[in-house]
């Protein structure tokens, strides 16, 4: 039994509660990116006690609309109070808004406008190099996000500067709001595209598998002279069959019946993992 894999299902329930409480959220991508963020935060050198530590690792959620998962993970790491997030999310005057905001503990940069995170991380990695610090910089992008031209400006610069302390992860769930990513704006061979920008590229067959993600992140840490891209092949809406692989669940708000069905299945899957 992998404790993180089990925990991912508890946090999925938190995400569901946050979204239902706040009356909306990007549930599909939240669910697909859960293991990615959870695994990252289980490894990163970050804690509520050293938020200003210049040697801390950095994470920028470039696909900022999946903030509900970030809230759940940050709460799990002690940065936020999950009950407060659930009670306040999207409420009038709340700090817990639908995209990351760096007035909240643990959040480095504001995002929500797609295609910014990678370039920001290039700057963070360059600063680390200038200062001789060993921290690592991570960003998580959506696959639909890759249509933003600025992503490729950032990719070019990271390759040019050989930023081996930078690791980008793509939540490759193959769906965006209008449908299949390859129909909307095809990425074709993503591996080859990033490799052509002088990146070390790792394909993770199951991006919802904690052990596979850890192996890829280990490889990224060992990689020298190049930034690393991890293409994490995930399932949009992962966790309950009624929302899996459905573009319409990009930001669908579950009704009471759906909420109950999702909760039930999350529990079942969690229990199955516990018995592995």
């Amino acid at each position, binding site marked *: 039994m992998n404790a993180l894999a089990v925990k991912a299902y508890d946090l999925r329930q938190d995400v569901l509660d946050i979204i239902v409480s706040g009356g909306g959220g990007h549930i599909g991508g939240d669910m697909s990116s859960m293991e990615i963020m959870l695994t990252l935060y289980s490894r990163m050198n970050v804690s509520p006690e050293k938020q200003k530590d210049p040697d801390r690792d950095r994470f920028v959620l470039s696909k900022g609309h999946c903030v509900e998962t970030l809230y759940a993970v940050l709460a799990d790491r002690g940065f936020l109070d999950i009950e407060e997030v659930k009670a306040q999310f999207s409420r009038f005057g709340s700090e817990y808004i639908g995209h990351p905001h760096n007035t909240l503990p643990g959040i480095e940069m504001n995002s929500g*406008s797609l295609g910014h995170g990678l*370039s920001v991380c*290039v*700057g963070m990695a360059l600063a680390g190099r200038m200062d001789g610090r060993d921290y690592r910089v991570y960003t998580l992008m959506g696959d639909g996000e890759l249509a933003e031209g600025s992503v490729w400006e950032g990719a070019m610069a990271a390759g040019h500067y050989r930023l081996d302390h930078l690791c980008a992860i793509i939540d490759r769930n193959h769906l965006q709001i209008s449908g299949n990513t390859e129909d909307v704006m095809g990425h074709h061979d993503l591996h080859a595209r990033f490799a052509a920008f002088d990146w070390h590229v790792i394909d993770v067959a199951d991006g919802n598998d904690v052990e596979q993600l850890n192996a890829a992140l280990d490889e990224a840490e060992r990689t020298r002279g190049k930034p690393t891209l991890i293409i994490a092949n995930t399932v949009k809406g992962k966790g309950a069959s009624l929302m899996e692989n459905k573009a319409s669940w990009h930001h669908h708000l579950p009704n009471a019946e759906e909420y109950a069905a999702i909760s039930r299945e999350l529990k079942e899957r969690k229990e199955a993992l516990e018995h592995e």
Partner: protein
Amino acid sequence: MNKIANRAVMCEVLKEAAAKDRDVVVLCSDSRGSASLTSFAETYPEQFVEVGIAEQNLVSIAAGLASCGKKAYAASPASFITTRSYEQCKVDCAYSRTNVKLIGISGGVSYGALGMTHHSAQDIAAMSAIPGMRVYLPSDRHQTRKLFEALLQDDQTAYIRLGRNPVEDVYDESCVPFEMDRATVLCEGTEVLLVACGEMVKPIQEAAALLNARGISTGALDMYCVKPLDQEGLLKAAQGKRLIVTVEEHAPFGGLGSMVAQVISAHDPRRVINLALPDTPVITGTSAEVFHYYGLDAEGIAATVAKALEG
């Protein structure tokens, strides 16, 4: 005639700062020559980042550096760093509260015959509309030095527009009055107040002299701090005037004139005339030719004032 452009002064100030502070970092987008920052790049290569022709990347990378404690100065033509990188200026600099100073070089119509792609006549409006973004247009090389020395002391983002060519001194080197975020009174008058920023300050200084010589008592105000606009200084200078005229190297909407009119109408309503570039692509010419054509030089400004007072 002064031969030193404001951008060259900026480079000198940043080099002085970089010598003492390794956190001072300059970024360019294949623009080090245009920005007069080549000598910075040569002197402090470890504190210089080249991003190539990619202005969005320029601003985001600057923000990433700043979030890690760097004092990031990102320089690129004003037309590109503002509107092409607008989203990055808004989200990564202002909204994320990073210490990025956005340097718009060759601002306004500095690029002359290169046309509208290279003119930045929208930058004041665009940048001022971003919450948390400050906007500065220094008038001459001496004020540019003072401004950059002040900016190096703070940790908030700002947009600074600089022109391409050397401009006549507004201030005497031995005495450069400067207070951060306070307009500078160039001369006092009782009847008319002229307000300008950037390269239009010299023309209002000269226009005020012309008008005073013609018996029209005219004051002039250098509003280099377009945002935060020095409302107190403006209202004080405007007190008792029959006419207020703003002059700017910018489109007629959303710039200095709009802001001055907004403040005057809210606090002390009186007649305000905005002199600006037209709401069309600007006629081909050098800065001086363009300013003359649109009545933005000293003679044009004085003529507008005289005519308005007759009416």
